[in-house]
Structures are given as C-alpha cells and as structure tokens.
C-alpha cells in the first residue's frame, strides 16, 4: 500500500473526503449544505459563540461545527428535531434583544439575522422584547453604530483587531450588560478608528452601517439652483451589479451613468480622470525624490483610511507620505475651480457628489483643509450601496438600462486610472508612468507589472528603470501596513515606494461596497478590474489628452506647477496622542478655555516637566489668565514619541526648550 488512505466522514448519510479543511463547517459545505452561522468568518479567527452552526456528531453529541476539527469516521447530522429547536430558540432570543425595525433598516435585504429567521421558520417570538434602547452613535462621519441591533458575534471586533491591527472597538462588561463599543464607551469619532468600514462590511446585521447621505443628495438634486455633478470611483462599477442581484465581476459603469442621468444628476464624470491626474502628480513627485535621493520610502496617499492611520500612529512619517491628495479630493478641487468658469456659476451652486466604495472618503471630504471659505470641494459622498438604494427608490430597473457614456471632458480615463480600484493598481499605474518616462518608452504599451497584482496582503518586487533599481512594496489591510510603517519609522525600510490600501484586496472590497464575504467572489471583482484595463485603448496616464487640456486651462500648465500644488496637494496632521493619559492640574472657570498640556514621561526628565508646569501656572497667575486655561499633564507612556517637557497650547506644539515661546503661545491663544 503506497497511497495514503483518504480520511472521510459522513454528513446526513453522504460520505465526504477530508482534505485539510480546518473545521466541520467547511467539510459540510462541500455537500451543498450551508449551515447557519453568525460568528464564523473564514478570514478571521474562530470564536464559536453564537451556537447556530450546531450539528449532531454520533456518540459525541451536539457540537459547534465552526470550532470542531474534522476527524476520520465521524457521523454527522445537520438537521434533527432537536437541532432545529435549538437554532430557532437562539434566533428568537437574539430577536427579542433586537431593535426590530426591519422595513427601515439599511441592511434589510442583506441581514443575516433576518435571513436566518426566515430560513429557520421563526414566525413568533416567545420572549419579551427588551425595553430600554441604547443611544445610537452617529458621531462618525463614516459610520453609524446602533447597539440595539448588535448580536455580539464579535466579527467587527476581530476584523478591526486581526485584519486592521487597530482594535478601535472591543467587548466590554459581561453577562446581560455585555456590549461591543469603543474604549471607555466613547463615541467612534473620538477614538483611533480610521473609518475604513470593514466592521460594517462584516457585521451580519444593521448594528454598524455606513453613515447615510442619501437625503442630502436628493435635496441637492431637487434644488433647481444647484448644478449636481457626480464622480464615480473606479471600484464602484465592479461591484454595483451585485446590489442588483447580478453575478460578481461585472462592469456596471454604463448602466450607472444612465441611472444617474435619469435621477437628475446634471453631469456624470469619472474619478478615473483624477486617478490619472494623481499619477501625473505622484509619479512626478516620486521621480523628483529619485533624483534627490529621498526621502524614502515614499508611501501612497490615496487611501484616507491609511492616511489617518499614519497620522495617528506614525506622525513621524509625514515626510514619507506623498503630498498628493486622493483622486476624490483632486476631482473636487478641480471641479470647483473649472466648473464655475465653464458654466458661469458660483462655487456654492456646484454640488459635487462622490460615489465611492469607501466609508473613509466621507470623513476625508469633511476635513477643513479641503474646504474653501467653508464650502467643501466634495459636498457629499455616497457609498456604492447608498447609490444602489437611491436607484432602487427612484423605480429604475437597473438591469434593463441601456448603457451610457460618461460626460466629457472629465469623464475620460485610462486603464491606469481604472486599476486604482484594486490593491497594486496605484503602484502599477505609477510605474507605468515613471518607468515609461525614465526609459523613454512612448507610448508605453506593454508595460505591465504582474508582481504587484493579486489579493495577497503583502507583495514586493524590484524594478530596473534606467540605472536605478527600485524596490517596491504593496500592502493591503492596515495590519499588513503596520510592519512596513514601523520599519520606515525606524529608518530601516529597504523600499523606495510603498502602496497602502486599508481594505483587504483594495477599494473593490471597500467598506461601502455590497456585502460580500466570500473570497472567490472578491477575487472576481479584482479580475474584472484588469479585464477592463485590457480593453481600454490607453493604458498609461501619460496618454490622457483630456487631462493635458485641463492642466493647460485650470492647473497651471503642468504637474507640480504652483497652482497644481495649491489645489492638488496637502499637508498632514499629527493625530497622535488620542489616548495619552491626561490629568487636569488646574482648570479655570471661564466657559471658553484653552488647553495647555505639559508632557510628562515618568522617569525621564521629570524635573524639567515639573519646572515647566509650575512656571506655566505661575505665569497664568501673574497675568490673570488662570481662569481662561485648563492646565493638564499628558502622560506619554514609552510607546509615544512625545518627550518630557514638551507643551501643547490649544493644539500648537512647543518643544519645551523655550519658556518664552510657550508664554507667547498662551497669550496668542487666549487673545484669539
């Protein structure tokens, strides 16, 4: 006997072979039976808490399939009277604890709780409904958390911790008080959440959903004085069809344009146009760095989830992040520059609506630095599912629509712009441009970089361009980005250029896309991106001639011109210290107070910190400013970069060597 014996087990009388499956759930799935699950997620660790996936194993009794490894000879039944009863009771108990407002819930058709209740035939609930409701957290511009719909499956906690390496939400308390919430029951907007929306993408119910801006956009459409302009991100077109029950991996761009026109959008443009623009700016920035010998590595900056992550956790990398705004923001700034002129309208009358796969873009669009006199460059951001719901509510039969083309000139993009939608795409687009330019290949057809493609979390390659050897890395998920960022912060990065996207697989699997927790279907979306690129006439951003016109008319003639810099680039903030332990030393009585915080690190320069503190207190007394200040100590534990004796005055930073500067800072802050 040379062939090793194949292990088998029996599911409902059918024999199945075991081939390295990690648990019974996966083996049972092979027989065509889909067990109900809540807390099982193939890409996360096994939790085993919901007790829905129960099966009966002969001679062993009832077991959770998701957390039981398959063994040779097991005899399994997935549907007995007792199992049915247990599952039903579980669902009933969850429903009793659930704020059941299904008709108005955003997840109404994609909710696992609802689907399971229907599948298991729960038609009455024998338990009394919980009375008091917890407040809904609407603090975040990206997400809404309704604890009353949470079934405590923990998927969001695990995705945020295991995949994103953040852990902004976690389990707290226990027993009947157990809940999922940010630290100290703070609001999501006050903690280290980067708005990626992956928690919403895995939540089986409507307990975490993208913040909804549908009403805002309807209002703009219905306001006759407004010109409403849409931009459609590359990734949206590869997932929207799923919302309308079509197979994954179709390109719905043409139908989406048709639908938006019907709904009353005045112009429908393509973010691919500004993706190409991003490449012009970013690849030029990279070439400049190559010439100047650094600073390296350069990180891409088109993912606002990643940018916020870096601002919170690695503020020292500000110089390493490309100064380019994301394609969404480049589009907004360009529209508000060009359209008033083109259409003879005021800036305020142009409403730019982004249609994005992404919840973080909602946060980005609201940042003050992207506003002019209070008017934002991008007025509203809709996720793919929001636009799906709007199309639906208009009564449009999406699947029957005839395709229409984007409006020109801002609806024109190349294949390089399209592949921005997936992990590796921004890098490949930049390389097509940069390598093409270094090697003087025009037009740059046939420049493809397959090493950066695919859904692996980490990809690296090195590329010869002229005399230079460029080391390249591409990561998706922030958990994977963390290591590379740490390496760069320690000055040990071997790379020249690193692309980061926060979502697994990139934007095609963004937090605003139709819910899809299936690896195979996810990769269909990625394949569709490259298929679309293949079919494009132009594949290099350099070949976008409409973009050339746009630079000539509105952006100072060429990439990196002064005007382009002003409109298309940005600066980064230091958001570190969200969780510094702050203790109030003296608080004044005035209603408007300036926070003055002195950084203290136990064991390090304590004398200096104490001196600084008492001098600030003395100074406040002398000048009679004490009532207008809150003087605090901020304890920076070993991991943060803040140094003992440093002072923040109303958010402004002083390194603590110059007391007079601090005093002046206080006076200025109070005077403002």
């Amino acid at each position, binding site marked *: 006997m040379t062939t090793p014996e194949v292990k088998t087990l029996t599911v409902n009388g059918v024999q199945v072979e075991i081939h390295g499956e990690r648990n019974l759930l996966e083996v049972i799935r092979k027989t065509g039976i889909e067990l109900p699950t809540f807390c099982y997620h193939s890409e996360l660790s096994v939790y085993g808490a919901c007790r829905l996936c129960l099966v009966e194993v002969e001679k062993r009794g009832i077991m959770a399939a998701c957390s039981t490894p398959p063994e040779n000879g097991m005899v399994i039944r997935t549907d007995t009277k007792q199992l049915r009863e247990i599952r039903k009771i579980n669902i009933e108990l969850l429903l009793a604890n659930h704020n059941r407002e299904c008709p108005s819930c955003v997840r109404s058709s994609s909710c696992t709780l609802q689907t399971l209740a229907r599948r298991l035939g729960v038609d009455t609930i024998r338990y009394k409904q919980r009375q008091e409701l917890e407040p809904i957290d609407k603090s975040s511009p990206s997400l809404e958390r309704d604890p009353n719909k949470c079934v405590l499956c923990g998927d969001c906690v695990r995705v945020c*911790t295991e995949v994103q390496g*953040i*852990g*902004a*939400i*976690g*389990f*707290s*308390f*226990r027993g009947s008080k157990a809940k999922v*919430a*940010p*630290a*100290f029951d703070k609001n999501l907007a006050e*903690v*280290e959440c980067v708005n990626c929306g992956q928690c919403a993408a895995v939540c089986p119910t409507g307990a975490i959903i993208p913040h909804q801006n549908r009403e805002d956009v309807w209002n703009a459409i219905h306001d006759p004085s407004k010109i409403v302009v849409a931009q459609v991100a590359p990734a949206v077109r590869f997932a929207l069809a799923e919302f309308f029950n079509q197979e994954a991996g179709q390109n719905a761009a043409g139908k989406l344009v048709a639908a938006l026109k019907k709904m009353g959008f005045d112009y429908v443009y393509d973010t691919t146009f500004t993706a190409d623009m991003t490449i012009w700016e970013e690849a030029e920035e990279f070439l400049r760095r190559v010439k100047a010998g650094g600073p390296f590595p350069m990180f891409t900056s088109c993912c606002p989830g990643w940018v916020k992550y870096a601002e919170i956790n690695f503020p020292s990398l500000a110089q390493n992040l490309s100064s380019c705004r994301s394609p969404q923001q480049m589009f907004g700034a360009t529209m508000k520059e060009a359209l008033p002129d083109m259409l003879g309208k005021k800036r305020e009358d142009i409403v730019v609506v982004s249609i994005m796969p992404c919840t973080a873009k909602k946060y980005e669009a609201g940042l003050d630095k992207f506003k002019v006199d209070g008017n934002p460059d991008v007025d509203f951001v809709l996720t793919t599912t929001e636009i799906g719901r709007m199309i639906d509510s208009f009564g449009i039969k999406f699947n029957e629509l005839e395709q229409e083309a984007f409006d020109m000139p801002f609806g024109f993009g190349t294949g390089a712009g399209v592949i921005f939608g997936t992990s590796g795409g921004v890098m490949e687009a930049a390389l097509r441009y940069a390598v093409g330019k270094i090697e003087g290949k025009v037009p740059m057809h046939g420049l493809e970089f397959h090493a950066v493609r695919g859904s692996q979390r980490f990809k690296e390659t090195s590329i010869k361009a002229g005399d230079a050897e460029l080391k390249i890395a591409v990561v998706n998920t922030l958990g994977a980005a963390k290591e590379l960022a740490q390496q760069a912060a320690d000055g040990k990065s071997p790379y020249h250029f690193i692309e980061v996207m926060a979502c697994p697989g990139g934007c095609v699997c963004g937090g605003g896309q139709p819910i899809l927790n299936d690896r195979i279907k996810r990769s269909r979306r990625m394949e569709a991106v490259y298929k679309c690129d293949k079919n494009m006439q132009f594949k290099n951003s350099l070949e976008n001639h409409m973009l050339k016109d746009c630079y000539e008319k509105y952006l100072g003639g060429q990439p990196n011109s002064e005007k382009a810099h002003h409109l298309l680039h940005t600066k980064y903030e230091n958001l570190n210290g969200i*969780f*510094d*332990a*702050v*203790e109030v*030393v003296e608080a004044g009585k005035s209603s408007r107070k300036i926070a003055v915080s002195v950084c*203290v690190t*136990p*064991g390090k320069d*304590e004398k200096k*910190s*104490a*001196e600084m*503190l*008492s001098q600030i*207190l*003395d100074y406040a*007394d002398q000048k009679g400013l004490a009532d207008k200040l809150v003087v605090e*100590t901020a*304890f*920076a*534990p*070993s*991991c*943060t970069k803040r140094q003992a004796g440093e002072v923040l005055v109303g958010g402004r930073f002083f390194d603590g060597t110059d007391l007079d500067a601090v005093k002046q800072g206080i006076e200025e802050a109070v005077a403002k």
Partner: protein
Amino acid sequence: MDASVRAREAEKAVSRMEDAEAVLREYNYDKAKLVPILQAVQARYNWLSKELLSYIACALGLPPARVYGVATFYAHFSLKPKGKNIIRLCDGTACHVKGSTAILDALYEKLNIKPDRDSTDDMMFTVETVSCLGACGLAPVMLVNDDVHGQVKPSDIPKIIDDLLAKQGSKTANEVA
C-alpha cells in the same frame, strides 16, 4: 499661591503615573500579564481611572478598547474611585432573608451617602453589596475593610463606624457629614 507650594504641587502632578510605570516595569511591559498588572495598579491607586487604563494600554501597545474590556469584565476591578474604607455588605440569599436591606439603609443614613452614589463625598467610605461571602451561618454579614462582622443589626451600625473612625484618629462620621 506661593512659589514653593506651587512647585511642590507641580512635582506631585508630574509624578502621578510613577507607581503605574513601576508596576509596568516590574512586569516587563508584558501584554500577556494584563490582568495581574491591572490588579497591581489598582492596589496602589485604589481604583482604575480612565487615565490609568489609557496609560497602561499605550505602554503595553494594546488597544485601549481591549484594556477597557478586560477591566470591565472582572467585577474585582473598580472604574470608579473608592473611599479609604470599604464596606462590603453581603446581599446573598441567606443575608437578604435575614434583613441585609435594612442594614444597607442604616449605612447610607449613618454615612450620609446620597442616593445613586456608593461613596461619601469626602471619599472616606465606599459601600458595596456583594453576593454570598460564604459565611451564611453568620448572616447578615458585613466586611469592613478586612474585618468580618456577623449577625449585624441596623442599630449596630453607628457604633461600628464611630469605633473605626476613632481607631483611625479621624473625626466621627457625623462631624464629617
């Protein structure tokens, strides 16, 4: 405020996390030791403030939500400040039947604790109810710091409190109130 007092105050403010840092150092900043670290820090500060939890989370490189989760999971950890003296009144079945509720009322009255609170304003006392202390034979049972008082009657309460304060050389509870 005179300068030397001010300087002393500043030094005190600056050294507030020193004990926590000492505990962390002792445990080698090991995330796996989160529970013993929280225990040791609580032992020194009497309770776990938000500031302490944040500090520990950052120092260990753990998400603050996780540290908060552990701290709220175990009843042993206190996220509210505790008084100097801690009175634990048993409200297990046996003690409840033998009248623990009346004793709780007597404690609240004697210590002048406001409804919805569990500590005196001056933080001299915190009153907690706990489940069965395993001394049902002595029901109703009350622990004052580490001393067990069995078969307590409501009328015993003023004396127990006054004796304790006398022992500690403080003013009586009435004067405090």
